[in-house]
């Protein structure tokens, strides 16, 4: 990333504007030079748009029984209907809302936990650091999905009203934070030895300020990458919990579609349209986000980039005016 050279005489606002433009341009250049990130973000944006525009895309109510069940795809119902006679395409686009909402909620919450545990356990030595690090490692070694299943099935005990998106998001948040926390902890351990941290300490900044305002901004790329990784995991686990019937089975979501497909033995009788679309959506979304993560890895570790042919690279560097 380039640093803008702004001379002292420049007005403050114009330097801000410059910097914002520079940043925008550098994000654009990053996307251009790293097709993996661009493709992944494009896929995510596509699904978000579909989820937002659901009422425009389909005239049907996803949860209403409109026709007789299990119709194959036709011009009126482009992906056919479910066993209960709901329109499959409507279920899919409205289901994207549930899946993305749970995914984002759980991933954001989980990332906050990761930042808290990762940075504090890395920054503090001694008993606090050891204790936090032990907690992280214990959560890391305990299998996450079985724990999530136990939590979700006990949470919905006695009342089916507890089977909702919020409970699923909470369960996933609680079982998905450990890996990211360990990654952030390792980075914090190395950052806290740097001069800028020593300097901040010498000027008397409070510990909390050092951790969250000095160290955290320097780990932004890593936080972004663990956020994306957590999101992928959470979406997969969410679909799995819903597939087991631990979600709200009366409301359209991708996992719920697969739950009913399995329960109605859609496969054995060859009703492929009841399970192929939802599975493909999950796979495309998760693969897209994984590409974003590979892209971030490549930005951080230049050795992983595939080398371009020499001549092209020279030309590129001349145009940009920077050495690659």
């Amino acid at each position, binding site marked *: 990333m380039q640093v803008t050279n702004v001379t002292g005489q420049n007005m403050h606002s114009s330097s801000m504007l410059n910097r914002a433009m520079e940043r925008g341009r550098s994000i654009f250049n990053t996307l251009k030079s790293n097709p993996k990130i661009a493709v992944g973000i494009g896929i995510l944006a596509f699904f978000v748009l579909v989820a937002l525009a659901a009422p425009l895309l389909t005239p049907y109510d996803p949860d209403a029984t409109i026709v007789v069940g299990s119709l194959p795809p036709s011009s009126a119902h482009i992906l056919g209907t479910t066993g209960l006679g709901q329109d499959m395409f409507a279920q899919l686009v409205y289901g994207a809302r549930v899946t993305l909402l749970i995914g984002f909620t759980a991933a954001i919450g989980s990332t906050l936990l990761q930042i808290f545990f990762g940075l504090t356990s890395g920054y503090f030595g001694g008993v606090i650091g050891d204790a936090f690090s032990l907690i992280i*490692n214990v959560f890391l070694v305990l299998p*996450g999905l*079985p724990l999530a299943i136990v939590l979700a099935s006990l949470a919905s005990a006695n*009342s089916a009203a507890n089977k909702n998106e919020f409970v699923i998001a909470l369960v996933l948040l609680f079982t998905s934070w450990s890996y990211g926390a360990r990654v952030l902890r390792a980075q914090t351990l190395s950052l806290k030895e740097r001069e800028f941290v020593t300097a901040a300490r010498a000027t008397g900044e409070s510990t909390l300020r050092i951790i969250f305002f000095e160290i955290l901004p320097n780990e932004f790329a890593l936080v972004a990458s663990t956020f994306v990784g957590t999101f992928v995991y959470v979406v997969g686990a969410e679909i799995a919990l819903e*597939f*087991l019937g631990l979600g709200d089975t009366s409301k359209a979501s991708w996992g719920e579609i697969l739950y009913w497909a399995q329960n109605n033995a859609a496969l054995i009788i060859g009703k492929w349209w009841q399970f192929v679309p939802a599975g493909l959506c999950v*796979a495309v979304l998760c693969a897209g986000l*994984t*590409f974003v993560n590979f892209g971030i890895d490549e930005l951080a570790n230049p050795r992983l980039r*595939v080398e371009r042919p020499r001549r092209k690279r020279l030309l590129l560097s001349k145009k940009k005016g920077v050495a690659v």
Partner: protein
Amino acid sequence: MRHLLRRVGFYLAALWAAVTFNFIIPRLMPGDPAEAYIAKLQTQQVTREQINAIRELFGVNPSIPLWRQYLDYLNSLLHGNLGIATSQFPSPVIDILRQSLPWTIGLVGAAVILSFLIGTLVGMIIAWKRGSWYDTMVPPLLTFLSAVPYFWMALALVYIFGVGLNWFPTDSGYDVFSVTPGWSSDFILSVAQHAILPVITLVIGSLAGWVLTMRNTMITTLSEDYVLMAQAKGLSERRVMFNYAARNAILPSITSFSISLGLVVSGSLLTEIVFNYPGIGFALYKGVQADDYALVEGCFLVIALAVLIANFLSDLVYTFLDPRVRRGGS
């Protein structure tokens, strides 16, 4: 040796955490899972003593202080008393787990070994041929396959190879109608046949992780001076690839074993459900479907225990492979 002792201590702490979660979770939840469970038991023919024992296991009796409940709970666990499975009354949970565990261990074990071997080899080769067409094609393809949910992959395989082509059986762990369990060749053949599709599901789902870890560390290793030196000496390509580069690049793959194992176990739970495979995952599923919390909790404990033991084994392998750890360095 000190390193290994520390690891044993850590795994004991993790096991304690798993047990304590099992103790705390039902007590924290809204509603009362234990009462629901007991209500279910009361429809069966259970004696008052059995109900009281279960009340204590779940800590429903509020007159007993919490620490006392906790000690009782630990004590009953040590005696293998995990309660009675309401969904398969009157089998004790421990018996169901004992029957299911070997199936899951066999499935996960075969899948992990196969996908480790194939994945590491593929990762090694595509790193060696970096920039070739298969280096650009294989990782995205595998990433896509690993993003497919395990159970969906299983469903697709059932549909194509089971229902469509009718090549492999897709139900249960062996042919329940024609063979009896035992050390007969018929039984072993039947088990192997029934395991093919589940194992393929798990291998496809977990392959990408091994390939990418190996590829990425191998690329880093390939730029080391000793690799250049080996090439300059005129050693054969295969020798440089296996004995110089791959040998040093494989350690991170073993470190990431614990994470990938957790994922494969989770995948196996879902795969078993699709194939009606008689392992822990299927038992867990039946427990969830029937609100049989004793069975659900028992399954979680056994899975956690198995994963911890497997992790310890991978620690042993790591200590054996990396002399720096043995000597007590970082």
